[in-house]
């Protein structure tokens, strides 16, 4: 596949932004500065970015409770996101949503979602809208290995196939739903993708810790979907570096598991290793991006901390457009 330097740099920047965003949140949460409970996306960067680098603002995604990565990959304002997670008044959702409910419909990010499995049917609807527009746009549902067992997800796949709309089901298999392993909870004849295939869809599989593999496989998938107008699915094998939520003691992990994953399955390391043997990028460019990202995240946290808190008098705003 032909990559452009700009494209690769942009992808790396997005992955680095997700990683640093989450690593930093991990620290700030430990300090007790952030309300609520938070699910970090670190480890899965190549999945979100490998998918979303193919999209523009008219393509739509629906996300999950673990949505920061999808938001950043789709282009949400990082500082506004940070403010949202801090619960500030000019957060991306005015402090009313928080970590699990970040959205920016103006760029096709239709929402993180606290209800596991709620997103897939919504992507089918977004795909109906995309079909009606007739511009070859697609709608993507991100779901986990846990969400793939929710009835809504199956219904959505069936309906998308029945009515033939450009909905794409991206299954990020990070091998855990909360404290339960995918090998227990997902009954299959082979894997999550094969269950999707049973709906008559074309399916793909890729390494969701490897940007290139995810990106290239998605290119094939999107060719198919944009060409046929039909739905498709992809299973991404990926990893979660932190607990299910911040505070999770992770007693279900094997000893040393996370260390091993950080060694062998780190999307940023894999990207760098690839570029080290490649002519496209200079590693110094990546170092420079890392620094810029650090500055951005520092500024985002500083600004979020300083930002004005929510005003209780506004509690009843925006329940309705008009009531």
């Amino acid at each position, binding site marked *: 596949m032909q990559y452009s330097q700009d494209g690769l740099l942009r992808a790396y920047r997005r992955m680095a932004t997700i990683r640093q965003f989450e690593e930093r949140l991990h620290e700030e949460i430990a300090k007790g500065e952030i309300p609520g409970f938070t699910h970090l996306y670190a480890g899965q960067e190549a999945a979100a970015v490998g998918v979303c680098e193919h999209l523009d603002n008219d393509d739509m995604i629906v996300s999950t409770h673990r949505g920061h990565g999808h938001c950043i990959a789709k282009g949400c304002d990082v500082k506004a996101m940070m403010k949202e997670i801090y619960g500030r008044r000019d957060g991306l959702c005015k402090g009313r*949503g928080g970590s699990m409910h970040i959205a920016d419909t103006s760029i096709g990010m239709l929402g993180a979602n606290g209800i596991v499995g709620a997103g897939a049917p919504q*992507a089918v*609807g*977004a795909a109906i809208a995309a079909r009606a527009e007739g511009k070859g746009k697609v709608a993507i549902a991100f779901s986990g290995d846990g969400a793939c067992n929710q009835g809504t997800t199956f219904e959505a796949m069936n309906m998308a196939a029945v009515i033939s709309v450009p909905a794409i089901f991206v299954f990020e298999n990070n091998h855990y739903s909360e404290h339960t392993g995918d090998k227990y909870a997902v009954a299959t004849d082979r894997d999550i993708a094969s269950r999707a295939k049973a709906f008559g869809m074309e399916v793909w599989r890729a390494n969701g810790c490897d940007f290139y593999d995810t990106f290239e496989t998605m290119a094939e998938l999107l060719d198919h979907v944009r060409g046929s107008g039909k739905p498709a699915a992809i299973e991404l094998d990926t990893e979660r570096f932190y607990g299910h939520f911040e505070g999770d003691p992770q007693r279900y992990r094997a000893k040393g598991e996370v260390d091993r994953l950080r060694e062998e399955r780190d999307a940023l390391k894999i990207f760098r290793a690839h570029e080290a043997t490649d002519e496209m990028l200079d590693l110094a460019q990546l170092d420079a991006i890392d620094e810029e990202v650090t500055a951005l995240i520092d500024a985002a946290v500083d600004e979020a901390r300083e930002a004005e808190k929510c005003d209780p008098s506004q509690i009843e705003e925006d329940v*309705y457009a008009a*009531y």
Partner: protein
Amino acid sequence: MAVMNIREAINQTLHDAMERDPSVILLGEDVAGGAGTAGGQEAIGGIWGTSTGLIGKFGPERVIDTPISESAIIGAAAGAALAGMRPVAELMFADFIGVCGDQLINQIAKFRYMFGGKARCPVVVRLIYGAGMNSAAQHSQAFYNLLTAIPGLKVVLPTTPADAKGLMNEALHGDDPVMFFEHKALYGKKGEVPEGLHRVPFGHARMAREGGDVTIVALGRMVSFAEKVADKLAEEGIGCDVIDPRTTSPLDEEAILDSVEQTGRLVVVDESPPRCSVATDITALVAQKAFSSLDAPPECVTAPHTPIPFAPELERAYVPGPPAIEAAVRRTLDWG
């Protein structure tokens, strides 16, 4: 003005809306009917006859027959709305809200608020409801109370053909999700319907009768029962205000309070079982805000706290009817 029944009024309004606005789509089980069969398209036009003729005009990309997957139906409506469309989704029986409850109460209802006011989700969900056809416990329920309880939803109960049209048009022009409850026993009810883009604003009750002695607030099918009672009592010189709120969320509190301030007596008639019902909601409203006007204990005429039975004798006993309403009115008048 044309005379038609509620079924026709809804059908006509959907025709007009789909013609006017390409973003209006319809989804549901058998809304066209006949997909994937030898008999071909439009075998049925909706089992209630409310979507007749639509697929012929607007095609299967806008009139979408779905599999039996209510969560996906409402979820797809939600997603399409977030993406800029105006989906009208049909729940063949309102009883099925349990099958798609999350999309109603946690998704559609909350997007605008959770997303900081920047998302719009103008889904219209048509819920066909009500007892009276011996459809038993799972196909007869009046679940508007459960959705009235949910902030972010609007809840509409048309009782005349004109209001069916006007409230549907209002729903299709607003930017909020609307739960549009259609009583199956009212589909055949006839009346005059204004031409053109007739709209009825939400939160404005209809005074079905003015009497001045007792306030009867009646919901859905109960309105016509209350009217009957009012007409009968009028002959005895007892004047009933009959208020049809038309929407329970928003609720026209003013119309109810104004009437009670004059009459001092309240009877609320509701087809739902009693607990946490719209009847108790309105009773509590009046008790709080028109306390000193009340001259007698408010009366709730509701279904009993039971599932809906099948046998005709039992179902008749289940549904509140004119005798129970009349008795309640007389109790408020005789009180003290």
